[in-house]
């Protein structure tokens, strides 16, 4: 996988993960192109399209949020759909009935979850349970620090 993007139907970026080094300008171009291509697709199209030398896989969840991944030639597109699905499940489990707002207001958590699931464009952990456990423990670590500091910070020091 080369990149993973989350954006709304109105063209607002919600998350960007890049697995290859690109300049800011290149990133902006990719984002623009992806939004343009994906948002223009009619409702019941297939979830794949070709862009430059990449296979693009996209899926819409929560009525207005698009998940879009750029794959290399040897990546399995059908499996990529499962990868996106798995990420959605992880988000769902963490936030409890997740919706787009959760991802907007807790974007840093969305990244943390992603980083426990994928790395270097590859799957890190195939077990939902294991990912959930790591996240819980990491959050506990954070909360512990917050309590120590005696400041009324909620889980999520921000």
């Amino acid at each position, binding site marked *: 996988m080369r990149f993973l993007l989350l954006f709304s139907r109105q063209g607002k970026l919600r998350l960007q993960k890049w697995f290859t*080094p690109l300049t800011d300008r290149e990133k902006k171009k990719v984002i623009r192109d992806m939004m343009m291509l994906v948002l223009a697709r009619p409702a019941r*199209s297939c979830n794949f399209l070709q862009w430059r030398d990449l296979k693009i896989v996209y899926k819409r969840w929560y009525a207005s949020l698009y998940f879009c991944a750029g794959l290399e030639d040897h990546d399995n597109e059908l499996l990529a759909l499962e990868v996106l699905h798995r990420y959605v499940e992880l988000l769902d489990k963490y936030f409890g009935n997740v919706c787009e707002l959760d991802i907007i207001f807790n974007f840093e958590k969305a990244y943390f979850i992603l980083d426990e699931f994928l*790395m270097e464009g*590859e799957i*890190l952990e195939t077990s939902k349970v294991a990912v959930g456990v*790591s996240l819980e423990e990491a959050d506990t670590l954070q909360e512990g620090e917050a309590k120590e500091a005696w400041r009324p910070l909620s889980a999520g020091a921000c």
Partner: protein
Amino acid sequence: MPAPIRLRELIRTIRTARTQAEEREMIQKECAAIRSSFREEDNTYRCRNVAKLLYMHMLGYPAHFGQLECLKLIASQKFTDKRIGYLGAMLLLDERQDVHLLMTNCIKNDLNHSTQYVQGLALCTLGCMGSSEMCRDLAGEVEKLLKTSNSYLRKKVTLCAVHVIRKVPELMEMFLPATKNLLSEKNHGVLHTSVVLLTEMCERSPDMLAHFRKLVPQLVRILKNLIMSGYSPEHDVSGISDPFLQVRILRLLRILGKGDDDSSEAMNDILAQVATNTETSKNVGNAILYETVLTIMDIKSESGLRVLAINILGRFLLNNDKNIRYVALTSLLKTVQTDHNAVQRHRSTIVDCLKDLDVSIKRRAMELSFALVNGNNIRGMMKELLYFLDSCDPEFKADCASGVFLAAEKYAPSKRWHIDTIMRVLTTAGSYVRDDSVPNLIQLITNSVEMHAYTVQRLYKALLDDISQQPLVQVASWCIGEYGDLLVSGQCEEEEPIQVTEDEVLDVLEGLLVSNLSTPVTRGYALTAIMKLSTRFTSVNRIKKVVSIYGSSIDVELQQRAVEYNALFKKYDHMRNGFHLSLLMIINFRFFVVLSSFKMVQVCLSCLCVVPILQANDLLDLLGGNDVVPVIQNTVSTKPASAGGELLDLLGDLSLSGIPPMTAYNKNGLKIDFTFERANPNPNIAVITIHASNSTEADMTDFVFQAAVPKTFQLQLLSPSSNVVPALNQGTVTQVIRVLNPQKQQLRMRIKLTYTHKGSAVQDLAEVNNFPPQSWQ
């Protein structure tokens, strides 16, 4: 200073902005606050501020002033700080900036941290954005960590190692020892990442590949366990146990089995098992099947297995799920070269996909359809493809048209079918046809000699209907210019000939010149066509008028052409026919279609005119008649002249028509024989080869042969084989004369010979009247 506002608060506030300007204002205000907070080196709220900055960065606003702050967060002792710091580093920094190197030390320390989650953060960041320098510095740490038994860390280190290898391939060797017992893991996460690492190494190094082939049995076993094992809640996806791992193993097997008989054999059974047993009702099962098919096709599998794979793809084609149909078409496209016959069996399904509503599927189906066209199915396939061309979206038309032309050229069952197909494309998708197709089509039409009348008629009719499609108009103009005589004489055999007068044809062509729809290129074609018709039609005056009008056209190209054509009318009227002749000859060769017809005129004019007109005038004086036309003699082998010679050779259709040779001159030991050939396709041209031989004891050097013919003829003299006629008949000098005799008058020729013999110059004139009737009738 009050505490900086919290992240969620900021997000809420920004979302209330109703305009872009309002949002920008809020952002600027907050950025200012954050900047001053950074200046105060406040540790407590740094984390909060950077998080806000990251949010604003995601909205598209610049956040580079937060980069150093991220580094400070990373260096902090608190996990909370590190988490945001590392995230910030991954979002704001990249390997192009030197700043990122400052992270190296922090990462190194954190890699050895006591808390695994801190170590995890460091590994994640290094694996995400570590530059080559960082990877080189920290590879040792990574390698050390690979030995850990902590599965949480193990999987992260393994992927980090993959990143290092991708960045610095030379370091791959150092990870080799750690791969010793890579596959004996139970933990799926570790197993999965290990398979990724092995795949990476095998893809990059043939040595590694050979080394790891021994793992095939182990991989097969793991895969088997996954399939046969009962329900495992932790890894289950719709009834399939850990599909991600299964697919990854299948991919590694593909790489290991490729080109290797033993490995391929070892995996045959498991592949068959997966292919037949996997549940296909959900996407996840199909994802595994897909990977299995790819593997089967790539390794040296037995033929039964290959057929099974293609059949799976065939079933995919009929699946309701669009994604699966798309994937099937993509895979079939990959295998169509190697397993052509097997894929052919699914041709009708593939062709049906042309009618699919989905754009991605249509595109793949089109590509695959073209790959499947062959001599047997060309008629049926072309019908479908032409129907597709009619109805498809504009984005497909150019590619489809090109594909149709290519396929038609390769497999056309008959010339008539070929021309009809081209016509169909030009009329239905004429504006989408690529520019370079036009010369190719012209070439094609030229070569289909017997179809000229039919072609020009159909094109003319098409022009009457619609002049908006430029490629169609260009090809049609060219044809009319070339075969206009066939058009007005109503000679079509293939279909009912239409009645068309010269004036009507000229009306159409002039219409193209003035129409707003015509591009400059098209106008050029139209003008040249009109010009060419001056040698085929009788209404030359009308043509002359048109041409002279365009001599003052605003369009420079058009103006230049018109001026040159005007010149042809005025100064070289006698050569217009020759112009026709040369064009006709040279048309058979690609370099015409590469040069535009305008350049062609230049070549003609330059070769035929850059001439020693002097020489011709001399001859005129000598021969003292106004009925004799100066002849252009090519003594220098300029390119066109030799082209002429090659033309003669390459025309190939020259048939020795059985015209008897004759002796034209025989005096003082110099004998000149003429032999005759008729040039095809133009029967008005007689090709005469002179053979000069010398029966005296001394060579005749500086031998020059010149000829002149009456006005109604055109003559072209090509380069002689040599200027020395050797003594005692030891060899002949040959030279080719081409005579155009459109009015079929009796051929007469005056010849002049000059040579040096035994030290003195000799000159002689003679008249040749004894041409056999067959040579000019």
